[in-house]
């Protein structure tokens, strides 16, 4: 009898309160079962892991990537001293080199999620400069340079206990159906990942945070992860949350935790 109760207890605890570690493992097992041909490291390439032809074309463009001019501008902006002779580099650990994999993280003091973009603006505030508009070219170029120095670093999102409510909200946002089309993020990126939606392949949620900012051939410029979130919400005809809003930061935090262990390869090119 006591053995039975023990089983019931363990069952209920694993189904009701799944920890981030469980979530991540469950999702990886699900993809492994659905998409057995895709190795874990392939998820860093997004949809290009699914189609050999588009991957070949993509690798070709990568030989001389169109975002190079933006990257150069980002480097110059990053190195340019502020009016008080301080630099962006002074605000970040290891002078801002190879640190993009640590973002987003949970800030215990502020009790909020710090993303790379918000950290750049915090740095500007600290140096008495006006903040940059999120999604503006300048902040995207800066993020592109910082991502470029972090190429190959493995995503390393920590999950302290105090961050769990934010993680749970991010997860709820991911699975919540919304909008006129009544889609959740998971409808496309979990249930139908790797399948076609008209002519396009749906990317799996695993690896969504590896390759930002991304130069879209469609728009002809670099865009951030939050720009993409906004596009997704618009496409399912849902309320569009602003870039760097609490909702989208929590979603980024959740997705980033899922992608732990994947290498960063941004800035990148996407169709």
């Amino acid at each position, binding site marked *: 009898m006591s053995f039975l109760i023990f089983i019931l207890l363990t069952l209920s605890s694993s189904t009701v309160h799944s920890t981030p570690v469980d979530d991540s493992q469950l999702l990886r097992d699900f993809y492994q079962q659905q998409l057995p041909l895709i190795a874990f490291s392939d998820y860093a390439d997004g949809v290009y892991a699914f189609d050999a032809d588009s991957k070949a074309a993509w690798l070709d463009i990568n*030989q*001389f990537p*169109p975002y*190079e*001019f933006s990257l*150069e501008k980002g480097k110059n902006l990053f190195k340019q001293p502020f009016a008080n002779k301080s630099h962006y580099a002074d605000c970040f650990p290891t002078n801002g080199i190879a640190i993009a994999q640590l973002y987003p993280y949970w800030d215990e003091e502020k009790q909020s999620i710090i993303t790379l973009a918000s950290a750049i603006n915090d740095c500007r505030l600290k140096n008495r400069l006006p903040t940059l508009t999120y999604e503006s070219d300048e902040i995207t170029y800066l993020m592109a340079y910082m991502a470029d120095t972090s190429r190959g670093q493995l995503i390393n999102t920590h999950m302290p206990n105090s961050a769990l409510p934010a993680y749970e909200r991010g997860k709820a946002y991911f699975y919540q159906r919304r909008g006129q089309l009544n889609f959740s993020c998971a409808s496309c990126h979990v249930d139908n990942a790797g399948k076609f939606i008209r002519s396009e392949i749906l990317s799996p949620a695993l690896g969504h945070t590896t390759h930002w900012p991304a130069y879209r051939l469609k728009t*002809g410029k670099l865009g951030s992860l939050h720009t993409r979130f906004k596009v997704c919400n618009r496409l399912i005809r849902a309320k569009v949350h602003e870039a760097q809003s609490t909702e989208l930061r929590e979603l980024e935090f959740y997705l980033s935790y899922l992608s732990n262990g994947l290498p960063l390869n941004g800035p990148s090119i996407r169709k």
Partner: protein
Amino acid sequence: MANRSTIKIRTKYFPDYTLVRTLIAHTMETGRNTAQDTKELIPAHFIQTLTFKHNDKVVSECHMGFGISKNPFFSFKIKQAKLGDKITISWKDNLGFSDTKDHIVQ
């Protein structure tokens, strides 16, 4: 065009040919786009002639219109080019701006 060049050139030497690739930073405005803030037409601004030179000898001249994409990319093969040869690429647009860049095959 100040101090930064708008042209990037990369070459790769193969025994029977040299692959030259170039990326040019240019808005390539067609004249049919409207500005988002003022709702007015953006004047056409595009590259009209693009010249490729090999050791100061013109090997190709492209006459382009506004149908070419923003930040255009070109790639071509030169059979005669050897290591150490000079490749020059220059452009001139409809508003009279221009830029040129030299590159040594390596």
